[in-house]
């Protein structure tokens, strides 16, 4: 086989493994969501399909596929059909640049375990990820229902407010690692002491809060807000179209968790074992991402929803200034590092 052909085959295999893996994990997360919520409320959760209810996502999938997919009479038919895909696709596209593991060696072929390694991977994630809100807005608008429209509008306002703080938080990390390439950022955090969480805890906190808002999760799920908007932007959706919205949400959760792990928690590096086998690296990455996914569920079943004005206040009056100051201090420390060092040395020497 010629090297070019081999490369294409490897690439196709990687796309399938990573993409199907992600959809699988998204399905499992839906089950985990129901199980975790049940356990937190002294219930059992789904336990009828398969052992301990493990096949529940499969049953849900079959049901979603076979149910009738209604299109309301007054809806804009094409937009209505298009919106779920528009909501789910960006999350699935962003997964392409996530570095799930170090260089993998199988059958004598060595390849990095991510679909592509973009130099501007973070830019790509932010740019494409930001598009997912269009699916929500278009879906809300095309449904021709007041609740859906309000849900879509809220989603857009929320997205604009929180994307800013999120980008600023990510920039702080980019500033200290000097790269937009996720793999590069991960490579710089080989040992526990190098994890960015130690240097940028505030940025992590900001990112985490913004990530909850970006993925439309509790306590910021204003786009669906059941008590006020029935079900928000997907009120009129049913069957597989509805499932696509959910799939998009869960994929976005996985991507956000992966970004957080890669930027702050050393990505696929194994604590205390800097030279670990690649398989261990992938396991470490998955374990870290699972912790974050659990956090998403955990928060959802703990906190009540914010009020919309509180959300906006938090976004513009608290998060944005803190993110700006954090970035400013980071930049100042980096650019004046030599002077600070000499000043410190001078102080230490003077004292001694």
């Amino acid at each position: 086989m010629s090297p070019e052909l081999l490369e294409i085959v490897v690439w196709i295999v990687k796309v399938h493994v990573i993409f199907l893996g992600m959809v699988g994990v998204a399905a499992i997360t839906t089950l985990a969501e129901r199980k975790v919520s049940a356990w937190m409320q002294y219930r059992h959760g789904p336990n009828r399909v398969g052992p301990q209810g493990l096949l529940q996502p499969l049953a849900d999938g079959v049901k979603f596929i076979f149910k009738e997919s209604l299109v309301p009479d007054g809806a804009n038919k094409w937009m209505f059909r298009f919106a779920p895909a528009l909501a789910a696709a960006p999350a699935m596209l962003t997964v392409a640049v996530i570095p799930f593991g170090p260089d993998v060696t199988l059958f004598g072929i060595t390849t990095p375990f991510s679909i592509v390694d973009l130099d501007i991977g973070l830019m790509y994630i932010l740019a494409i990820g930001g598009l997912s809100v269009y699916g929500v807005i278009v879906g809300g608008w095309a449904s021709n229902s007041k609740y859906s429209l309000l849900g879509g509008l809220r989603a857009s306002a929320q997205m604009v407010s929180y994307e800013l703080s999120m980008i600023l938080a990510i920039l702080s990390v980019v500033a200290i690692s000097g790269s937009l390439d996720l793999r590069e950022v991960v490579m710089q955090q080989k040992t526990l002491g190098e994890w960015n969480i130690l240097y940028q805890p505030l940025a992590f906190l900001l990112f985490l809060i913004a990530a909850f808002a970006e993925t439309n999760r509790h306590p910021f799920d204003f786009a669906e807000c059941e008590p006020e908007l029935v079900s928000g932007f997907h009120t009129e959706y049913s069957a597989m179209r509805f499932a696509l919205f959910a799939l998009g949400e869960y994929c976005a959760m996985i991507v956000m968790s992966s970004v957080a792990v890669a930027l702050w928690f050393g990505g696929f590096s194994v604590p205390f074992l800097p030279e670990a086998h690649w398989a261990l690296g992938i396991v470490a990455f998955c374990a870290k991402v699972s912790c974050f996914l659990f956090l998403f569920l955990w928060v959802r079943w703990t906190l009540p929803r914010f009020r919309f004005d509180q959300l906006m206040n938090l976004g513009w009056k608290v998060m944005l200034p803190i993110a700006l100051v954090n970035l400013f201090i980071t930049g100042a420390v980096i650019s004046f590092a030599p002077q600070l060092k000499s000043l410190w040395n001078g102080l230490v020497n003077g004292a001694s």
Partner: protein
Amino acid sequence: MVIVRRKELSLRERLYLPEIARGLSITFRKLFEKPITRQYPEEPLPKDEVTRGQPRLVVKDDGNIACVSCGMCEIACPAYAITIDGGETDRPIEREPKKFEIDMLRCILCGFCEEACPKDAIFMSDELELADYSRAALIYDLEKLKRPKSALQKRIDYVYRLNNRWRKSSSTS
């Protein structure tokens, strides 16, 4: 006029995060607690003699039902669930029902039939489950209502106990 006093939030509370952590720790602890939901078909409902299930007719030890088709229960029934067609028999009691039907969809499990019966012929059993595919199938006839006395013995004893207490208190007054 109602004056709602809002609690002044401390700095710690206004920071949200410590309070959120507190909430999270509570829900995390609940994760490991035993569910209190009953897994219904596998874990049946608790029953004892106080359980007022569906009414059933007593079949005495000699194989005959105790009912004399007096119609008291039919009259007592607030839901008009009971339909009795009286008939004659050669036994000393002379009468027994030719037809005795309880429409289980109408029965409200009030127990009035049990109270009204002068012959201790109808009692509330502990049977609670009621499901079928047609309405007609839920109109129970004699054959479906008959239960051996032993199956209802606990309830019968209980009712006797109740009634005795009532008798005592009324005789003293």
